C-alpha cells in the first residue's frame, strides 16, 4: 500500500530513538482523545498495550503504525471504522508534525500550514487501495466531490468561517449555510459516511475545537449552531445521494421526530434499566425453593469422594439458564412518544442480555431494526437512528396495528417458533382502524409465549380507540410504563 504522503512520513527517517517515546506518547494521547470524543471507549490498558506494540514495530511505514493502533486501541469492527475515519484527518497530521518537528527542530506551525491540502489530495488514492471496510461508505462521496477538495483554500475557508461566526451572523443565515456546504465540500474526500464522525472532523479541520487558536473569541453558542448546520447539511446530502427514496419512509422525512425528554422520571428509568440489565444477565440462574430434579451423578460422586465415597450431599443437575429467542415489536408512533425513550431503553437492555433478540419498529409498517439496536450506544441514539433510518411510515404516519400484524404474520413466519418469546411494546391504540386480530392470533399461536407491554394504566385500556382487551385475549398484557414496572419484567422474562 503506497501512500503519497509517505515521503513526508518516512523521509525524515525514524524519529531518533531518544525522541521516540515522546512521539509515541503524543500520538497515543491524541488518538485516545479523538477516539473518546467519537464515543469509542479507550482505557489506559489499551494505551499501554499500544505503546508496547509501537515500540515493537518500526515507524517507517504509516500503515503499520495505523494497524498497530487499530488492533490495540479499538475492540470492535464498528469502532475500528471510526478509528480509520479519524486517522487520516487528525492522527496523521499529528504524527507527521511530530516527525517533522523532530527532524527540523522547529515549532510546529510551519509544517502544520502546508499539510492539510497536501494530505487531503493524497488520501483519495490512499483509500482507494485500502483493504478495510470504509470503501462502501465512501463510494458516493468520492464521485460527488471530484476535484473540489483540492480546489478550496482551507486556510481561507477557516478564516472566513471564524470571521462570520465572530460577527454573529444569524446561525440560520444563508451565509452560514453556504459556508457549511463549502466546508463539507472541502472535506469531501475524507468523508466517512458516518455523519457524527464527519461533523467532528470538519470542526477540527476548521479549527473549531476547544483549544484551537482563535477559537476563544467565538461563543460556544455560535460553534454549536454551526455544528448543527453541518449535521443537517450532511444528513440532507446523504439522503439526496442515496437517491431513490424507498417507498417506506423514515419518520424524519414526514417532518416528525421521536420526542424525547417528556418522561419526567428519566433518571429513575435509567436506573431501573440498569438493574434490569443486571437481572437479565443472570436471569434463569436464580434458585427457587428446595432443589429438585434429576441428580448430577458426576458432581454428586465427586463430592462424595471427600467423604470416602459416601454421598452425603446430593447435587441435582444444574439448570441451564433459559435464554429464549426474543422477537420484540416496538411502537414508535407519536401517541406513545412519551414512552418511546422508555421502550427503546428496554429494547436496548434486552439486546445486551439476549444474543438472539430481533427487533422490529413500526408505525404503519414494520421494519427490522435489529442492526440499529446493535450499533446504538444508548436509547437516545437508537431513537435517532430509528427516526432517520427505519422505514416505519409510508402514508400518514399514524399507527396501524392491523396492517402491521398482517404484514408480520407473513414476514415473521420463519422467525417465530415455539421457542420464541414475542414481545409487543405499544399502547394498542389503532386510530379506529382494523385491529387485525386474526393476524395477531396467528402470530401468538406460533410463538411460545407472547407478552404485551402497555404503557397505559389498565383503567384506560378499553376507552377510546384502544383495543387492549381484544389483544389481551391472545397474550399476557402487562402495564409497563415506569421504573417500578420494570422490576417485574426480568422475572417475567426469566420465569416460564
Amino acid at each position, binding site marked *: 500500500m503506497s501512500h503519497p504522503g509517505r515521503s513526508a512520513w518516512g523521509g525524515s527517517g525514524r524519529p531518533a530513538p531518544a525522541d521516540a517515546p515522546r512521539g509515541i506518547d503524543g500520538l497515543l494521547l491524541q488518538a485516545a482523545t479523538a477516539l473518546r470524543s467519537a464515543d469509542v471507549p479507550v482505557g489506559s490498558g489499551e494505551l499501554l*498495550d499500544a505503546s508496547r*506494540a509501537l515500540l515493537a514495530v518500526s515507524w517507517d511505514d504509516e500503515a*503499520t503504525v495505523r*494497524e*498497530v493502533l487499530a*488492533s490495540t486501541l479499538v475492540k470492535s469492527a464498528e469502532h475500528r471504522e471510526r478509528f480509520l475515519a479519524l486517522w487520516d484527518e487528525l492522527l496523521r497530521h499529528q504524527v507527521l508534525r511530530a516527525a517533522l518537528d523532530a527532524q527540523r527542530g522547529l515549532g510546529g506551525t510551519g509544517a502544520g500550514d502546508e499539510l492539510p491540502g497536501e494530505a487531503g489530495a493524497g488520501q483519495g488514492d490512499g483509500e482507494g487501495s485500502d*483493504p478495510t471496510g470504509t470503501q462502501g461508505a465512501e463510494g458516493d462521496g468520492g464521485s460527488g466531490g471530484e476535484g473540489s477538495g483540492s480546489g478550496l483554500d482551507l486556510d481561507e475557508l477557516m478564516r472566513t468561517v471564524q470571521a462570520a461566526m465572530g460577527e454573529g451572523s444569524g446561525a440560520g443565515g444563508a451565509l452560514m449555510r453556504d459556508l457549511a456546504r463549502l466546508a463539507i465540500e472541502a472535506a469531501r474526500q475524507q468523508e466517512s459516511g458516518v455523519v457524527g464522525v464527519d461533523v467532528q472532523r470538519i470542526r477540527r479541520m476548521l479549527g473549531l475545537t476547544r483549544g484551537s487558536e482563535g477559537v476563544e473569541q467565538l461563543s460556544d453558542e455560535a460553534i454549536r449552531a454551526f455544528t448543527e448546520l453541518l449535521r443537517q447539511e450532511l444528513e440532507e446530502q446523504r439522503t439526496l445521494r442515496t437517491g431513490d427514496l424507498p417507498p417506506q419512509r423514515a419518520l424524519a422525512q414526514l417532518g416528525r421526530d421521536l420526542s424525547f425528554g417528556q418522561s419526567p422520571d428519566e433518571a429513575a428509568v435509567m436506573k431501573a434499566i440498569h438493574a434490569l440489565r443486571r437481572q437479565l444477565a443472570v436471569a434463569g440462574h436464580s434458585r427457587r425453593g428446595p432443589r429438585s430434579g434429576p441428580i448430577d451423578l458426576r458432581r454428586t*460422586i465427586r463430592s462424595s469422594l471427600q467423604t470416602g465415597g459416601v454421598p452425603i450431599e446430593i447435587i441435582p443437575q444444574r439448570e*441451564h439458564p433459559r435464554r429464549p429467542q426474543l422477537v420484540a415489536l416496538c411502537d414508535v408512533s407519536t401517541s406513545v412518544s412519551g414512552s418511546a425513550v422508555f421502550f427503546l431503553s428496554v429494547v436496548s437492555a434486552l439486546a445486551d442480555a439476549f444474543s438472539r433478540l430481533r427487533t422490529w419498529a413500526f408505525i404503519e409498517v414494520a421494519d427490522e431494526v435489529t442492526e440499529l439496536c446493535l450499533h446504538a450506544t444508548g436509547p437516545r441514539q437508537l431513537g435517532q437512528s430509528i427516526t432517520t433510518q427505519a422505514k416505519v411510515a409510508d402514508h400518514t404516519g399514524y399507527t396501524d396495528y392491523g396492517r402491521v400484524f398482517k404484514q408480520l404474520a407473513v414476514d415473521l413466519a420463519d422467525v417465530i417458533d415455539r421457542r420464541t418469546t414475542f414481545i409487543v411494546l405499544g399502547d394498542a391504540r389503532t386510530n379506529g382502524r382494523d385491529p387485525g386480530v386474526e393476524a395477531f392470533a396467528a402470530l401468538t399461536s406460533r410463538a411460545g409465549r407472547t407478552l404485551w407491554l402497555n404503557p397505559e394504566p389498565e383503567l384506560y385500556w378499553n376507552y377510546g380507540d384502544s383495543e387492549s382487551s381484544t389483544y389481551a385475549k391472545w397474550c399476557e398484557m402487562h402495564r409497563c410504563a415506569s421504573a417500578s414496572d420494570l422490576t417485574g419484567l426480568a422475572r417475567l422474562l426469566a420465569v416460564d
Partner: protein
Amino acid sequence: MDRTALAADLARAGYLADDRTVLVSALATELGKPVLVEGPAGVGKTELAKALAKVTGRELVRLQCYEGLDEARALYEWNYRAQLLRIQAAHGSDGDWGGLRDDLFAEEFLLERPLLQAIRSEQPVVLLVDEIDKADQEFEALLLELLSDFQVSIPELGTVHAESHPLVILTSNAARELTEALKRRCLFLTLDYPSPERERDILLEHVPGLPDGIALRIAEVAQKIRDLDLRKPPAISETIDWAHTLLLIGATQIDQAVLRETLPVVLKHRTDLDLVAERAGVVLGQTASAGRAGSR
C-alpha cells in the same frame, strides 16, 4: 520482529495472510497477548490459528465453545470412576486414611481439558478458543483468570501455574457482544472476505491444477455472490470446494448452465439458491443475458 519472514512462513503453511493479519500475529507473539479475531463465518479465522501452530511448530489445542460450556468440559475434571475404584481397592487393605486421601486427589485422577492442557504443556502451544461468542458470559469470566495471569485455581490442588505461555487465539462471529473485560485483554483483528486477487491465490494454493484464469473468475463471481443479500454468503472453504468441483467436471468457463449446476456446492440455503439463480446475469457480469436469467 520479522514480518516478511512470518508472512512467508504462513504462506508456506498454506495460509495467505494480508499485511494486517501478519502484523497482529507478530504483535501477539511479541507482546504475549491473546488475539480476538472477529469476522463472518468462513473467512479463515480458525485456519489462522492452525497455520500459526504449524509455523511456530507448536501443538494446537482447540476448545470449541457452545452454549452451556462449563469448566468441567473446558478446564478440568476429576475422574470419579477411577477414584471410586481406588476407594474400592483400598477396602480390603488397611492402608492409612491420609495416604488414601492424598492418592484420591492426585494428578493421576485429574482429567485435563483443553484450557488446562494448554497452560500445563511443557512445550508452548497455540490455544484456539473457537466461537467464543457462542459460550455464556460466565464462561468468559472463567477465561479471564487464565488469559491475564496464565493460572487456574483447582480447589483440591491449589493454584496451577502455567508451565509455558500459550499463544491464544479467540475467534468470534460477533453473534453477541463480548464483555469489555475480555476484549480489554486481547488484541483485536477483523477478518473479512479476501479481495478477488487474494482469493485467487488461495484457490491456486489449495486446488492444484486449477488454471489461473478460472481461479480469478471463480473469485470474482464469488465476490459478486457475496454482494447479494444472502442468508449465508459463501465461505472461502466453499469457493475452494467449488473450484474442486469445476476442475472435476472439466469446466473451462463459468456460464449460466455451469453456475446453475454447481451452485449447491457454494450455497446451502434454498432462498439463497433461488436469489442467485435469478440474478445469474448480474453475478456473471453479463448484462446482455440478465433478462433471460430473470425469466427463469
